[in-house]
């Protein structure tokens, strides 16, 4: 391949006469940068202030940028220059020389088929063994995904750990509750909602799942796991802020809009001898977003 030559391209048409370039703009830019950098050091020394830091840093950097570019515009050769660009592909001669070097290796591989296969298997086995440390990254996915956060008899508590009585929630009210000893469990948050008389339309077999117009549903959206925190009391809807899945509370939290495809699981409610709310059993279905074998 021939060495690329750099030559001057045909000169551009003469531009209308301009004042000869001066060093004024680049010099001023650099000067401004110096002042800004000094000011920045002072601001920092005095305790700092975000807006001042940002602006001064910006001017310090920008002054250098403007100065260097303005210098280039005024004093450095503007070109245009030309360079030869050879074809990327090599000449046939070179390719054949390379072929000759490599083809021997291909033939060797062809002759030693057993060795090649064993070699491949050895690399493969090593690769497989190397995957095993990855196995230690986490436990087998299992019980946690399927276990209901509530079991029968668990007390419902607030985030502060206080047990809840039915009278604590006003009509049209909602609070978030947790199983008594699992307040920090990411899947345990549950909504306790006080519906108006006659509003609830329990699913078959769930007539006794409510206590004093109170119903409880998992707060973890069955779509992608965000907490369904928006309760529209007048329309009896729960709205998830992430992707706008909407659930109708009175109808077993059936999804009525958005991407969620499953109702929020319901928690049966009961009260203990002291009048505190407890779970009457586990959730009606798996909590949270779906996965491959969730229903098995």
């Amino acid at each position: 391949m021939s060495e690329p030559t750099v030559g001057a391209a045909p000169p551009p048409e003469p531009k209308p006469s301009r004042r000869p370039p001066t060093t004024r703009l680049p010099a001023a830019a650099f000067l401004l940068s110096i002042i800004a950098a000094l000011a920045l050091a002072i601001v920092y020394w005095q305790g700092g202030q975000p807006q001042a830091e940002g602006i001064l840093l910006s001017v310090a950097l920008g002054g250098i940028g403007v100065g260097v570019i303005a210098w280039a515009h005024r004093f450095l050769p503007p070109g245009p220059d030309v360079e030869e660009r050879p074809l990327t592909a090599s000449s046939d001669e070179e390719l054949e020389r390379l072929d000759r070097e490599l083809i021997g290796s291909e033939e060797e591989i062809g002759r030693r088929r057993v060795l090649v296969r064993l070699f491949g298997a050895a690399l493969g086995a090593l690769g497989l063994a190397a995957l095993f440390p990855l196995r230690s990254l986490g436990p087998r996915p299992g019980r946690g995904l399927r276990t209901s956060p509530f079991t029968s008899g668990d007390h419902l508590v607030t985030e502060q750990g206080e047990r809840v009585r039915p009278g604590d929630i006003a009509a049209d009210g909602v609070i978030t509750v947790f199983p008594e000893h699992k307040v920090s469990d990411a899947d345990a948050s549950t909504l306790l909602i006080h519906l108006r008389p006659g509003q609830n339309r329990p699913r078959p077999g769930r007539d006794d799942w409510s206590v004093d117009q109170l119903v409880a549903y998992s707060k973890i959206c069955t779509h992608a796991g965000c907490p369904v925190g928006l309760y529209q009391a007048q329309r009896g809807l729960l709205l998830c802020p992430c992707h706008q899945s909407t659930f109708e509370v009175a109808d077993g939290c059936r999804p009525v809009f958005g991407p969620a495809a499953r109702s929020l699981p319901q928690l049966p409610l009961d009260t203990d001898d002291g009048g505190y709310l407890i779970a009457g059993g586990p959730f009606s279905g798996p909590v949270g977003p779906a996965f491959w074998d969730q229903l098995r």
Partner: protein
Amino acid sequence: MAAAPDAAEAAEEAGHRVKPPLTPKLVRWFDRRLGGARLARKTLDKVFPDHWSFLLGEVSLYCFVVLVLTGTYLALFFSPSQATVTYSGSYGPLRGVEMSEAYNSAIRLSFDVRAGLVMRQIHHWAALLFLAAIVAHLARIFFTGAFRRPRELNWMIGVTMLVLAMVNGFAGYSLLDDQLSGTGLRVANAIILSIPVVGTWVSSLAFGGPYPGPDMLQRLFVAHVLLIPALLGILIAVHLALVVRHKHTQFPGPGRREDNVYGQRFWPTYTAKAGGLFFLVAAVLAALGGLAQINAIWVSGPYRPADASSASQPDWYMGWADGGLRLMPPWEIRAFGFTVPNPFFPGVLLPSVVFGILYLWPFIEARFAHDDVEHHLLDRPRDHAVRTGIGVAAFTFIAIMLLAGSSDVIATTFGISVNAVIWILRTVLLVAPPIAGLVAARLCVEVRRGEGG
């Protein structure tokens, strides 16, 4: 250069003592140790074509440099630990609140470390601009056909860097363990869970157990600070080496041919302009970092899995995926006790298809256009109506999904029902991209006809 001897003569004439030039001494000092004077001269003489759109890749490179510099500073203060601590710093409304050490260190950095907040904000703005520059650069490469032979490998490296940058940005802002990013991690986990057959395994291995997992932040930190930046660094080096190898493409014009490069020499002019651009990009990021508040984690509060805020979105470059999740109708496949959950389709399948097509595009186009010769002259978008139309359709599709990601913000800002917004965007998503593509292709043809082409 010719100037030096004249200056020396002039100075001599004026009676000043002439200093011998430093250049020959420096050159020989290095050459005795490295050799390669010829290689150096060839490099300095390399010609780079001059067009503003050819600088977009550089803008993303400089954003990456700023990210590494500011990121290194931040990593000296941030602690990726999920251990619970009680806040005792200077921000009153959080004093006494329990939070992870990660969130605590981020708040401390923002309020109690001098210039810490500015560094954090510059870092985050740099990430947003990094992705924007990459996308703009990708669009330029696509619409001018710069991905054609011999540059297909470089295109694929570029797409890989786009994916890595997106992932790293998401990992970065999720490290802070604030309410907004924690919500996003929950959604990411749900998407991973939705992968058929192996989803639960991948989730458990990645998070170290059921969500949130005890090592979640630690692993994000290693990925964000070490693994992905190292990969990006290597890929950037290869990407630039290939550009040097192939030499840069150029638009057709007077004097420009397939077998030459017409522009400016690398040294000194191009170097000066490129170096100056770095400082300008850094200046823009510094200004944003000081003047525009971003990710005010003290308002969103520490992450609690039981809470969420309205207007929860990921950063813009993930917004299209979130939009897909919002627009997807409630379809789920359930058969024989197995489920293919709803988030799988917009969260796994669609991005795989999009990036799959993106990766293979040079080969797809070469096949359908029956064109696999070397190209170094670029197409103007109007010269290739089919490609331009398809590209416009694709960008329209992604843009609408991006819009859908802000559905509730659109609803509140314009006073429209969020349900209506979603229904409208579902329709527009299906209808607008083909229309936009056809219109764009038609425009190309019309403009060329007007030129007599």
